[in-house]
């Protein structure tokens, strides 16, 4: 073998050394990735078979009025529900009117207000409130004023029901 071959060998060796350096960098990247993947696999394995105790979304959604229906239709329905309860509990409603539905943008929820004026004794008011609580929807009572007149108590209150905005829209 002459010096020309040796020269070729030296050049090849130099290239090899550089190649090995390159491979080493690549290899260390792979090793780091493998370490990361091993940790991830272990984490995933630990999750295998686990289940989330899901909230019953459907029954939860029943706490609100039907998101697909128009606010006015819902206010009518809400009014009818309240009227029926008042009739059942002898809570005498003298006037009932719809407020303006407002949108809570943060929660994406419509607030449906109902203004009620009534005359009744405390016993019937208690029955009325008890029945309102038992409605399967979330109803909030606010701005309640009770005044005593000669014969009975007069009531003014707002009842609020809620409707989630239909995301499908």
């Amino acid at each position, binding site marked *: *073998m*002459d*010096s020309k*071959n*040796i020269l070729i*060998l030296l050049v*090849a*060796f130099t290239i*090899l050394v550089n190649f*090995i350096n390159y*491979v080493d960098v*690549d*290899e260390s990247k*792979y*090793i780091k*990735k*493998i370490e990361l*993947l*091993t940790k*991830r*696999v272990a984490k*995933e*394995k630990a*999750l*295998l078979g*686990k*289940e*989330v105790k*899901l*909230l019953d*979304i459907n029954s*939860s959604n029943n706490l609100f009025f039907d998101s697909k229906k128009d606010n006015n239709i819902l206010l009518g329905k809400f009014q009818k529900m309240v009227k029926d309860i008042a009739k059942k509990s002898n809570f005498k409603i003298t006037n009932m009117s719809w407020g303006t539905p407002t949108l*809570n943008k*943060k*929660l994406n*929820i419509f*607030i449906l207000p109902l203004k009620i004026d009534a005359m009744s004794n*405390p016993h019937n008011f*208690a029955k009325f*409130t*008890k029945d*309102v*609580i038992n409605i399967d929807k*979330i109803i*909030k*009572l*606010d*701005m*309640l*004023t*009770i*005044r*005593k007149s000669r014969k009975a*108590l007069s009531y003014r209150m707002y009842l609020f029901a*809620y409707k989630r905005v239909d995301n499908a829209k």
Partner: protein
Amino acid sequence: MRKSLKEKYISIIPIEDSFFYSTIIDSSVKFNKETLYLNFAHISPYPIFEIIPFYEGSNLLLWFIPKLNKPINIPQSYLLFLELVKKDKNAIFIIDGDTFKVIVIKDGILKASFISYSMGELEKQTLLDEYQLENIYSVPLSKYNIDNILDNYSPINYYKWYISNQSLKDKALEYLNLAVIPTSIIIFIFISFETLKDNYIENRYNLLKEEYLSIKKENDKYRDDLKNQKHIKEFYNSFYYNILIYPNSFEVISKISQIVADDENNTIKYFKLSGDTINLSIETHNAIPILNQSLKSGYFEEFKIKSSRELRRKKINEVRYEGRLKKFKKSSDG
């Protein structure tokens, strides 16, 4: 170590085993082996020989020897010259031993070295005349230990005495040639090992990736459920703390009615609930139990008597209360 290396690579050529010749050349001239033999081979007393050349300025010193045994060959006469020249730069030195070793130094240059078997006054005078010198010294051989002289001779100078059929470059290339096959084998093994290792790592990575994606897919449902659960929880928490915000109004009214009804003489004259504020006007003989019970109920952040006046005709007090409802507090887990 140094000694063994010297023994291995350095040979001291005795005066009696060599023939010395010196001449003057142009100081810029350097002979290669072929031109050296071409110019000076005829001087050699040996039929088969090697020439050790040594350049000192324009002086060319040549030692002819029958055979070279080691790569570095330093003539004994030159080593003796190095010591003797310190004593006199223009003199003849006769070193007494079994034979007489004659070293001739002129103008600080080694001019001759040879062996003489007799050295009388006549021979000495002849030498002085021949070399046109005035001083001649007889020194005992024991005074000059060649090994000590060699030790003092800097190894840096050894290359001047390097004799080989090949040039240093050729020699170096020869060693490199010898290394070609082992190096190739090593490189081949190294490349194979690197390739195998690389393949193994890549395969391992791909297998792990596959396993990870497969398990991840299996867990996707769990992850989605968890995400949905989180969204639902976030919504209800937000709804609870932003919309409902205060205790259930129906429960609050019911509780207050119970508290008032504890005393049959108590009568609610006026009740107003708006947001977190409750205003209450009650006809009562004793305002304090209503106040205490209301505070104990846990619904109020504050509950106080705002005013009280006596209704003389009814012989009862009309007490006005004002309460502020507590807000729901977020628990640490949201």
